[in-house]
């Protein structure tokens, strides 16, 4: 590490203002050759905006960027790529129906006699993957590949363009602990070969494990730098959120009662027509939280969809409160099954952007009294209901008639939670309940989930965040390739143990 040389990348006093929002304010940073710089911050801290500016997707309102000491203006990503900057996006930017070769050369194609020279590109990919130990098959189609491999393709895409500066945006979010180790190995290889890396994350442990230097962002500003050799998790966490954070949720011991949700031998098919669930069986009792852990895409989404009636089960049985609900309609499950569902994708499923908050709050009860009388909608009752819930669940909005779509992410989630938590239920299914929202809202929602449990509701919690699972669950089920590979009591669970399970390695019973 050579800090005296010119930094390969320097950001000077960059401010970015979106209409009504200051996303970055006076941010400066330096990146040196062969360095892994970690950029730490919670959701909405402005990390992604900053990286998009460096990658030419956004343009700074003020400030400048220097590459190798030269001020540069990047109008499009093409300019950034030319300057040797490569980015691995949090959501992979790969075309699912195309091959690895096509994806990698896209935008930087090699052409022979007017036609694409796929053979030459594939050879180059093989060469690169050998050099950096990133194994992929150039002829594979992206949609057939597992997540970890897709990430390798993304990294190869940057290397293919001779990137000297790599930006990795939340690269560990979708990986198992073992895959994360693999990624770190790759990052170290890259560093040895002289690449410079910006590593964006909100996970404290990872930062301490891999980074050479840590910068913390909060509210769009740089709030501090830290040396991983000296910093502690607590220190970083408080820098990140601006106050002391409680990393664990306060909750008493569970008192499980009768079985509420009983799933036996459930099988289902994914959108792509492949088996997604291969015989899933488990139970959730009243007054306990069962967490479902697993790497994304192992059937969790389909599991929730089948239980809530959004997807057809091919085989198996579901009972809710002792009543058979296999392939029942969503309405019957919600109404007769007295269950609530906080959906994984709140925008797609949980709410209607163009509806007012009041209407969104009765989305699945609009047909019931007092909101409807003789098939006519009772606006008064709906408004009354909305006023109470907005107050109780602290949804920050100018009015109950504001469009749901114009709320912030956290408030939208609170709106969904308010609707789902406010009626008498026996079963709560919460999928990724805190994805993409601010820490304050996370705490609030976590407390609400625990409160529901203590009221005697059976809770099924699905989350990609292992920390969340560990903090809330009384029992943890791990899904792997459409099966529940094991269910462990919280007390017996360790990160490492769960990580092995998530990778499909079943530990021997002790």
């Amino acid at each position, binding site marked *: 590490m050579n800090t005296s040389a010119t930094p390969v990348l320097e950001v000077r006093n960059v401010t970015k203002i979106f209409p009504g929002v200051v996303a970055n304010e006076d941010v400066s940073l330096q990146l040196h050759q062969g360095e892994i710089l970690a950029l730490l911050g919670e959701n909405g801290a402005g990390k992604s905006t900053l990286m998009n500016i460096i*990658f*030419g*997707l*956004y*343009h700074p309102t003020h400030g400048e960027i220097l590459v190798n000491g030269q001020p540069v203006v990047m*109008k*499009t*990503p*093409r*300019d*950034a*790529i030319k300057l040797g900057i490569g*980015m691995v*996006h949090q*959501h*992979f*930017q*790969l*075309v*699912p*129906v*195309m091959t690895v070769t*096509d*994806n990698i*050369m*896209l*935008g*930087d*194609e090699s*052409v022979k006699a*007017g*036609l*694409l020279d796929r053979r030459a590109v594939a050879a180059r990919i093989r060469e690169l993957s050998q050099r950096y130990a990133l194994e992929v098959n150039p002829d594979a189609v992206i949609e057939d590949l597992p997540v970890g491999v897709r990430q390798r393709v993304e990294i190869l*895409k940057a290397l293919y363009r001779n990137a000297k500066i790599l930006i990795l945006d939340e690269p560990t979010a979708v990986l198992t602990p073992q895959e994360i180790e693999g990624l770190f190995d790759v990052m170290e290889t890259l560093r040895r070969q002289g690449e410079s890396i910006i590593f964006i994350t909100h996970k404290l442990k990872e930062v301490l494990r891999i980074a050479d230097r840590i910068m913390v962002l909060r509210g769009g500003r740089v709030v501090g730098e830290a040396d991983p050799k000296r910093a502690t998790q607590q220190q970083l966490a408080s820098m990140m959120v601006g106050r002391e954070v409680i990393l664990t949720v306060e909750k008493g011991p569970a008192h499980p009662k009768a079985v509420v949700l009983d799933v036996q031998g459930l099988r289902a098919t994914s959108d792509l*027509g492949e088996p997604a669930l291969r015989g899933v069986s488990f139970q959730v009792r009243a007054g306990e939280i069962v967490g479902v852990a697993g790497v994304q895409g192992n059937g969790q989404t389909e599991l929730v969809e089948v239980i809530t009636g959004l997807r057809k089960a091919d085989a198996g049985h579901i009972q809710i409160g002792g009543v058979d609900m296999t392939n029942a309609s969503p309405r019957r499950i919600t109404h007769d099954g007295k269950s609530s569902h906080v959906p994984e994708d709140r925008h797609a499923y949980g709410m209607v952007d163009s509806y007012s908050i009041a209407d969104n709050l009765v989305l699945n009860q609009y047909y019931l009294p007092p909101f409807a009388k003789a098939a006519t909608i009772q606006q008064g009752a709906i408004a009354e209901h909305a006023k109470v819930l907005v107050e109780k669940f602290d949804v920050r909005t100018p009015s109950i008639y504001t469009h749901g779509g114009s709320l912030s992410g956290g408030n939208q989630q609170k709106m969904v939670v308010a609707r789902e938590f406010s009626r008498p239920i026996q079963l709560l299914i919460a999928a990724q309940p805190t994805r993409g929202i601010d820490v304050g809202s996370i705490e609030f929602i976590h407390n609400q989930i625990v409160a529901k449990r203590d009221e005697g509701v059976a809770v099924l919690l699905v989350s990609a965040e292992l920390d969340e699972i560990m903090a809330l669950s009384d029992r943890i089920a791990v899904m792997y390739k459409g099966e529940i590979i094991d269910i462990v009591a919280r007390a017996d669970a360790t990160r490492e143990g769960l990580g092995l399970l998530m990778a499909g390695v079943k530990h021997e019973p002790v």
Partner: protein
Amino acid sequence: MGKQRYRITSYIIGGILLVFLVMALLVNTTSLGENTWLRVFFGVSALNFTLRASVPLILGAMSGILCERTGIINIGIEGMMLAGAFAAFVAKTSTNHWPLMSSLLFGVAVALAVGGVMGWLHAVFSIRYRMDQIISGTVLIILAAGISAYLFDRNAVAEGKFGAIALPGLSQIPVVGEVLFTNPPLTYTTLILVVVIHIALFYTKWGLRSRACGEHPRAADTVGINVNRFRYMNTIIGGMLAGLAGGFLVLEAVGQFQEGMTAGRGFISLAAMIFGNWMPFGAMGAALLFGYTQALQNELLLAGVTTVPRQFVSMIPYVVTIVAVSGFVGRVRPPAAEGKVYETEGGSE
């Protein structure tokens, strides 16, 4: 799995074509041709009619493929065709005094240009002004119908149209030569265009980028491809192809313009595109099928072999379209990002 199904479909289609070829040869060269029904199904006139009716559909479907592969839904093909037809007519009539060929080629050029303008308009509406793409298409259809009717100078008469060119040697092959190698120039052009577009789409830089814009515009953007520029470009080229279809109608098929002369061909092109799974050869196959149903309809009427009310005979192409769209849509896969506005601060718009 998709690939294998595709291969099976190709075999089936190839088989059907072969049976057709054999039957056509037999019917048109042997005494089998004395059977009226066989003549209706396999006669040279049925095959010629099929190709002729298919040309505008093929061009329309190619127009649709170009637009939709980059993510712009184009139901305005009908309007673009009509505009192209009208433009070709105006160009032809105002250059009647030129030598026939140059006047016709000028007509083709103008049809392409005006089709391109319509495509550009569609792109501006749906990209710059974020109009719903289906509505934008509808606007183009109404606009083209209105403008062409309003400006149509009914005293203008186009003199002459493209005639058939028999390709030396090839046109001597029995039946095949008569059907495939004795055609007017725009028909040849269309068949060549299908091959060119297929190669361009799947084996060139432009095609790779275009498809990326339609499947995952963000991915294209992040590697420095200007998504909206591609969308503009391809919608304009798509418009030109639809304009060429209109030019075909005026300069090659008819020789005159008539209000509303596209008569739903733009819509059937769309069905052909969907049926053909957004593939040039698939769409051509579908267009030929639709053309064949039209030929059959006319052959049946001309031969007078059936007393089924002719309205029901005329329904064949439309019913086939509905059946095709219902039977295949679930199984084909449209470009993923179709119909969605792509917005980025870094883009051109």
